[in-house]
C-alpha cells in the first residue's frame, strides 16, 4: 500500500544536493509519495528530474512526477503552523498521476490504481 512520507526541512538540513536527491528518490522507489519541505530552486529541480529519469524505473515507465506548492498561514490543510510561505514538493513515481483539485488539495492516482487525496 502506498504511503505518504512527510520530510521536514530540518531532517534534510546539511545534506549535500546529491545525497538529498538520492534520499528522495530512494523513497519514491519504495512506492512512497514524498512531501518534502524545502525550497528547491529551478536548477535543483532540473537536477532532481534528471536523476529521477536515471534512477526511477517501474514496470510501465521511467522518471518522477514533481509538483512544488506553497503553504501559508491562510491554507487550511494538514500543514498549518507556518509563519511564512514555505515551499513543499510533492514527488511520486512517473507512472502516478497527480492532479491539483484546488489550491493545496492534491489527488494522486498510483500505477496500481490506488487513489490518495490530501489537502495540505
Amino acid at each position, binding site marked *: 500500500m502506498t504511503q505518504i512520507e512527510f520530510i521536514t526541512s530540518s531532517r534534510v538540513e546539511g545534506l549535500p544536493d546529491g545525497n538529498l536527491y538520492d534520499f528522495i528518490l530512494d523513497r519514491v522507489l519504495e512506492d512512497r509519495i514524498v512531501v518534502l519541505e524545502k525550497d528547491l530552486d529551478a536548477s535543483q529541480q*532540473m537536477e532532481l528530474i534528471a536523476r529521477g529519469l536515471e534512477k526511477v524505473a517501474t514496470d510501465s515507465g521511467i522518471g518522477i512526477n*514533481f509538483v512544488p506548492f506553497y503553504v501559508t498561514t491562510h491554507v487550511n490543510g494538514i500543514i498549518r503552523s507556518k509563519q511564512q510561505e514555505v515551499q513543499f514538493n510533492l514527488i511520486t513515481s512517473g507512472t502516478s498521476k497527480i492532479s491539483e483539485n484546488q489550491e493545496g488539495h492534491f489527488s494522486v492516482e498510483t500505477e496500481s490504481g490506488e487513489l490518495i487525496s490530501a489537502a495540505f
Partner: protein
Amino acid sequence: MSGLLSKLFRNAPKQASVCLVGEVNTGKSTLANRIAKDFAGEELSEVSEIPHETREIKKMEHVDFNIEGAKLDLTLVDTPGIATAVNFKEFMEHGLGQEDAMNRAKEATSGIVSSIKFLKEVDVALVLMDSTKPPFDQVSLTIMGALEMNKTKTIIVANKTDLEEANASLIQSTFPHMKVIPISALKGEGLDLLYEEIATVAA
C-alpha cells in the same frame, strides 16, 4: 600579417549557439527545420507525431544567419523534449510493440537527461511552448527558472498559432517580463519577427 588577421576577425560574423528547448511535442524540430532550410538550405531533424521523435541533441554548425544587415555564424541546436517521466504505454498507443516502446523510452530518457545538462551551455535559448495548452506545466516553469538562473538569453516561442484553440496571449501574460513571439512553425507564419528577435538577442 597580424594587421590582416585582426581585420579578417573584425569582419567575421559573431558566433552564437541558438538552442531550441521545451516540452515534448511543442514543435522544436519543425521550427529547427524551418530555420535550417531558410538559412542553410537543408533540414536538421526528423519530425513525427510520435512523442520523443528527437532523442538526441542535433547540431548544425556555421549556419549563415543573415537578416536585415545582422550577420551571425550560428550553431543551431535541436534538443529532445524535456519531460519528468516517460511512459512506455504512450508509445504503444502510437502502434509500437512492447519491446520497441521500452527501447524508445530508454533512448528518450537518455535524450532528456542530455537536454537538461546541455541547457547550461546555451547562448540563446528559444523556449518552445504549445500555445493551444496552458503554459503552467511544471516542466516549462522549471526550464524558464533554470535559464533565468543561468542568465541565458531567452526568447519564448508560442508555437501552433495556426490551430483554432491557440492562445499565445495567455503565454505572454504568464511570462510578462519575457519577449513572446507567436508563430506557426508548420505554416511558416511569424518567422520574420522571430528572426529579427534572434538577431537582436544574439548580436
